[in-house]
């Protein structure tokens, strides 16, 4: 029986997600988002990451990342 190393994951918008890139901008790019995307905001471990900080924000296993935008609301 061989030990298996669990894949590194982050909690992305409430879902456990494999961590395939260590950079926030890399992850956002995979979702079709970049710094020019209007109306998008990001929180890492409960704190807002300002847009200008996206390029130098690294992701680590266990991080909790929320990506939000406005939708219809009352």
């Amino acid at each position, binding site marked *: 029986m061989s030990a298996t190393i669990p894949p590194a994951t982050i909690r*992305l*918008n*409430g*879902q456990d*997600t494999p961590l395939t890139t260590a950079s926030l901008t890399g992850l956002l790019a995979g*979702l*079709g*988002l970049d710094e020019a*995307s*209007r*109306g*998008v*905001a*990001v*929180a890492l471990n*409960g704190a*807002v990451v*300002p*847009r200008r900080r996206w390029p130098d924000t690294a992701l680590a296993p266990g991080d909790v990342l*929320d*990506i*939000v*935008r*406005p*939708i*219809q*609301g*009352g």
Partner: protein
Amino acid sequence: MTTDLTLSVAPPVLAASLPARSDDALTIGGRSFGSRLFLGTAGYPNQRVMLDALAASGTELATVAIRRISLDGYSESLVDVLARVAGGRINLLPNTAGCLTAREAVLTAQLSREALDTPWIKLEVIGDRDLLYPDVEELLRATEELVNDGFVVLPYCNDDPVTCRKLADLGAAAVMPLGAYIGSGQGIRNPHAIETICARSPVPVVLDAGIGTASDAALAMELGCAAVLLNTAVSKARDPVRMAAAMRDAVAAGRAARLAGRMPVRGFAEPSSPQLGLIGG
């Protein structure tokens, strides 16, 4: 035979003394609004109807919610969609709908500020998912924290003069007492409480939630509210665009009636026709 009609006719009102629309702007948090109707963007049959309703309402402030994006793909931003309405006159008011604690509401507000580049926030902190009633303790806590963080805070709150006063004292830019449960369309269940809040509030009072039809919106303005915020009454009307226009007119009429000053309510009849020169008298 002549009757002196002037005896019972009120002095003429000078048209010049009636404030023109532009002279009656509403100011909240340093921003001026020509329209006193704030409109939600949720629950319309489709996006086209929503955009037409927003345009017909004349509103300059539309609420939006902040939610996690779908991880499946990114579609056109609501920001871009709304920017095309009415020549870009509509400002966005993000809300914290669905938040149950001050902590959740504060983070949502901070995210909305980042997403929309606005310090304005419609602060909702809900204490009961069925009633969607505010949790006053958490609401006060979140208001204080967000005011200190530089936000223009518009809290959705109970129709309670004490809570409204506390919110104003904490620095809320306006208070937004509910007329009835959110989305219920029951109208203003306690008009006297709303009138009392309006009479005593040091900040503008925005009637938020419960409006069902145009007369409810007019009543809110007649009671002294500075503005009305509604959504479902328009989005779930049979003809939302037509109802949006009705709300626009109702808010304007209610405001005009408030400024005009209503007649006193009397317990008995008071003849409106002159009593002199009655035939057969």
